[in-house]
Each structure stands twice: as C-alpha cells, then as structure tokens.
C-alpha cells in the first residue's frame, strides 16, 4: 500500500509535489491557527454575552495577525538564571512536533498532479498513528525543558504538572487509538479512513462510543486544553511552563498549543468519524471529501471551545484520578472486549456468550480495581492514624495517595 506517488520511483516531479504538499500543510496550519484563535475568542465571547475582537479586519478576523505582529516586536527576555541553550531550544521542541503530527492527517481523497496520483495527505507512513503518539511524546520534552530551563519555580511546577499529565493521558489515548487500529487492521491513517467507508462503519459507531469518548477526553488533556489546562492555571502558576517566555518564543508556544488543538481535532475526525468520508456528488468530486473533512473539523473545534466555556478547571488529583483510575481501565477493558468480539466473529463463536463473558470479566476487573483502591486508601489512613503522634502529614497525603493509586 502506501502513497501511489512513490510507485514509479523518485523523480524531480515527485520531489516537487512533496515540496508543494509540505508548503501547503505548513501554510494551512499557520492560517488554521490564526483562524482558530479568532474563532475561539469569538465563540467564547458569544457564550459570555460579549462581542469579542471586532477591530482588526472584518469581524476582527485579523486580530491574531495583529497580536502576532506585536509579539514579534516585543523584547525577547532571557532570565539570568535560565539555562540559555535549553531555554532557546524548548519552544522549537514544542512547535516542531505540532507541525509534524499534522503530516499524517488525510484531508481528502486521491488527486492527480502532473500525471502523478497522490493522496491528499503529506505522508502516509506505515507506522501511521504511532507517529502521532511519538510526536506528542516529543512535545512533552518541549514543555518539560522550557519549565526546567527557566530557572524559576512556577515554570518548573507547571512543567512537572504538564509532563505528568501528558504522560499519563498518553496511555489512555493510545489504548483508544489501538481500538481504531484493531478495527482497520492497519496503523496507516489512510487505511483507517478507508476502513470506515459508510456512516455505520465509522469507528465512533462500530467500536461503540467508548473509545471515541476516551480519546476525546485524553486528547483534550494531551493538548492542555481546558478543562485540563492546569499546566497554565493562572491562579496558582502564573503562566505555567511559559511564564518566563516572551516575544517570539512565547508566540511559538502559543502557536504549538493551538496547532495541537487543530491536529487533535483532525485526529478525532480521522480515527473515529471517517476523516474525509462522506457522500460525493458528481460536481467537483475531489472537492467533497475536503469539504466533509473541514466540516467535521470545525465541529470538533467548536466542541473544544464549548468545553472551555463550560467546564471549570480540574483539580490536579482529580485529573490524575480520571486518567489512571477511570480512563485507562475503561479503555483497556473496551479494547479487550472489541478484540474478543472480533475473534469471536472470525471463529464463529456465539456473540451473546462472548459479550456476556467479556462483561463478566470486565465487572470482575472493575470490582478488583475498586477493592484494591479502597484497600490502598485504608492502609494509608491506618498508617497516618499510627503516625498521629507529632505533625500531621495528612494534609498532602490525599492527593499523593490518589496519584499513586
């Protein structure tokens, strides 16, 4: 399989087409971020009975451009205590993965440029979605190093939170992705989309909604979007990991954050909503998949803004609770159930038996998990009862306990 562009080997035209695609994706992401920031500010002000930006350009659509230009001309501060080299490196470690991970998103069907057939996606590597997970792991380094190299306490705390959060939610996200991969039988995003041909083949329906919901929540946490944005909890941590950053370096973090939002929405659409799939009409047949893709994308961008407007920020221990005790067990169970049903279908087992057995095992697992958690808490409480002699360390223990649990 793979992109038909490379079937005849590499020649100048192929290289040029790849370059063209790179430029298109690059520009698309920059413009998308610009519009996304504007869209977010507009929608959120709608939800708060305000008007929002309306000065720069029609409906304030150029506001982001104005803000970006302003940021470019601001003084680039470098704190005395900063680790200079790492401080300068960190924004790029955050931005580059954000750019790169969009490369695997299919935004349309197949087109033909200068006699070469090619997919409307920058790259279709066989490792596919693994690339997305790898890139989001690298982005953690950007956040972590930014906080560490700032030589200041708030960025450090923000970075610790951020990396803990991103690492723990990556597990739940990967398990949800694994369900989609299981149903397509391939890691390649193009194949995953191809496997969802038809509304009821979409993974959101064919896998049950659970992996979709888990992915949505985990991806929100992964992108540090509200309500999981406690990395940047202003009340506690000033600006979080980018407190010490200003000027263009800050702009890069900002860019990366919104780019991640766009990419994550695109991945939700790709993995669970059939990507560019949709009815194709005879008028301009190559256009329709692109239209469907962007429509779905905008719906999810709206949902992210809606989440931000509605939900208050999670507490840190609640965040860790949700990730480790709920999302990971649920998505693990669901993945096993999907796998069992799939094997059952291949081996002609009775679906009812497989389902009942799966649910029974799930209930058993859930009960065991709950019991283990309760036991862990009880031990801890007894422990602190025994240590009640002097100063009480119980103030910090609930959150620690739950993080460990």
């Amino acid at each position, binding site marked *: 399989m793979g992109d038909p562009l490379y079937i005849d080997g590499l020649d100048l035209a192929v290289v040029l087409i790849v370059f063209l695609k790179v430029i298109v994706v690059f520009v698309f992401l920059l413009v998308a971020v610009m519009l996304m920031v504007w869209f977010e500010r507009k929608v959120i002000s*709608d*939800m708060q*009975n305000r*008007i929002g930006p309306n000065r720069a350009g029609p409906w304030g659509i150029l506001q982001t451009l104005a803000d970006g230009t302003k940021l470019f001309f601001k003084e680039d501060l470098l704190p005395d205590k900063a680790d200079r080299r790492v401080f300068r490196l960190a924004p790029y470690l955050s931005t580059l993965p954000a750019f790169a991970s969009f490369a695997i998103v299919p935004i349309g069907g197949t087109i033909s440029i200068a006699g070469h057939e090619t997919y409307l996606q920058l790259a279709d590597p066989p490792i596919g979605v693994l690339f997305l997970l790898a890139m989001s792991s690298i982005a953690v380094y950007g956040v972590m190093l930014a906080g560490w190299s700032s030589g200041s306490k708030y960025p450090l705390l923000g970075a610790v939170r951020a990396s803990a959060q991103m690492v723990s939610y990556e597990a739940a996200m990967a398990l949800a992705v694994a369900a989609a991969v299981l149903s397509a039988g391939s890691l390649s995003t193009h194949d995953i989309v191809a496997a969802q041909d038809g509304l009821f083949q979409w993974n959101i329906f064919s896998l049950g909604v659970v992996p979709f919901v888990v992915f949505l929540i985990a991806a929100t946490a992964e992108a540090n979007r509200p309500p999981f944005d406690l990395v940047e909890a202003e009340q506690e941590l000033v600006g979080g990991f980018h407190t010490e950053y200003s000027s263009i370096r800050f702009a890069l973090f900002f860019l990366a954050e919104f780019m991640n939002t766009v990419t994550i929405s695109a991945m939700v659409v790709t993995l669970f909503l059939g990507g560019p799939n949709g009815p194709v009409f005879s008028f301009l047949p190559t256009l329709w998949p692109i239209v469907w893709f962007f429509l779905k994308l905008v719906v999810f961008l709206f949902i992210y803004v*809606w989440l931000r*407007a*509605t939900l208050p920020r999670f507490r840190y221990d609640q965040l860790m609770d949700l990730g480790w005790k709920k999302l990971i067990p649920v998505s693990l169970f669901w993945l096993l159930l999907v796998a069992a049903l799939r094997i059952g279908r291949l081996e002609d087992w009775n679906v009812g038996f497989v389902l009942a057995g799966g649910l029974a095992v799930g209930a058993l697992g859930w009960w065991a998990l709950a019991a283990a958690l309760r036991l862990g808490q009880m031990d801890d409480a007894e422990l602190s009862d025994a240590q009640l002699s002097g100063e009480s360390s119980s103030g910090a223990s609930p959150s620690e306990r739950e993080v460990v649990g």
Partner: protein
Amino acid sequence: MGYLDGFKVTFKQIFEPRVTTEYPDEKREKPERFHGRHVLNRYEDGMEKCIGCELCAGVCPARCIYVRGADNPPDAPVSPGERYGFVYEINYLRCIHCDLCVEACPTEAITESKLFEFSFTNRQDAIYTRDELLVDDDGHPRKLPWEDWREGDETNTSAWVRATAPSGDAGFEGKVAWSGELGRGVVAAEQGQVAEAAAAKAARPSKKVARTRRSAK
C-alpha cells in the same frame, strides 16, 4: 441532563443579546453629578465668579490647584467683588476629581463638567490655565483639541451639581440656592427626593422597571 446541563447554558447564551458597550463608538450616559474636567463659571452678566480666595487650593488633597488673587482693576472689574482670580491653574496629572474644590468654593466659581476623556501628550498641556478653564462668552466650556466632548458632557456643570442637601435633607430640596450663570441663567431646582420618590412610586409598577427608568434618565 445532569452533568451536561452546563453545556446547555453556555450554548443558549449564544443567542442572548450582547451586554458590551462598544466604547469609543458608543458611550454610556454619565451620571448627573459625574466628576470630570473643571470649568470656571461666570455670572449672567459675564463677570467671573472666582474671587481668588484660594480656598480650593487649600482644600485640594492632591495639591493640584494653584491660585493667585489680585485686586480688580477699578475701571474694568473682572469679578463683582474686590478681588479676582488672576492666576488659576489645575494640574490634571495630579487631580483626582474628588470635587472638594467645588464644595469649598464660596462663590460657585469652580464646578466640574462630565468630560473625562482628554489625553494630552506633554506636561504643558496637562496644566490647564485660567483661560482654558474659563467658560467662553456664551457660557460653554472651551473645547481643547485633545478633549473628546460628547453630547451632554457640559449640561449641569453649574453650581446646581452640588445642590443636594447634606445627608439628603428633604427640606433643602426644591429651593434654588445657587446663582445664575452665563448663557444658562438660573438652573431650575429638582423636585426633591421625596417628591421624586412619590412620583416614581405612582408611575412604576415593579422594581425592575424603576432601575431602567433611572438609568435612562
């Protein structure tokens, strides 16, 4: 709905009217006794009210007023009394618009307009001189190039603005206890709080309407 109720709430807000006032383009009406830039008033015959007593300068907590009095020239008196304000300067980099000068003035010479939107670009412009503060020959405040005067900013700038009895004594109201001024004559008295409240009670059915009526006025 339970957990999802919040989403309904935020979504519904999209269709609610906006509460924003688009400030430089449209402005909210200011309160009647708004404290803005000062004016120096004149009597109906054009004489200046200021007698150069320096009470305003004395009471000013921000020390932003500088006054020097001088004897009226006998052949062309500036004010009806013995002396007049020869120099009168207010430094608007210091002024806090507390209105104590207006309270202190024995002749109602200094009052405040509702103008607060003025932005100068050097310190010289920040110090308003007597010529700039004094109302012109028609009794209107002089409009300097860096000031943004809007409809209604100069109404009720006269001594009327301080004509409410201390602690809201109703017996004080309804009486004209201030002098006339150039271009406007003697401003009529208010009905008084008691009469106003009675009229309001008769006219307004509910409390909510009362609030809108007051703000509309």
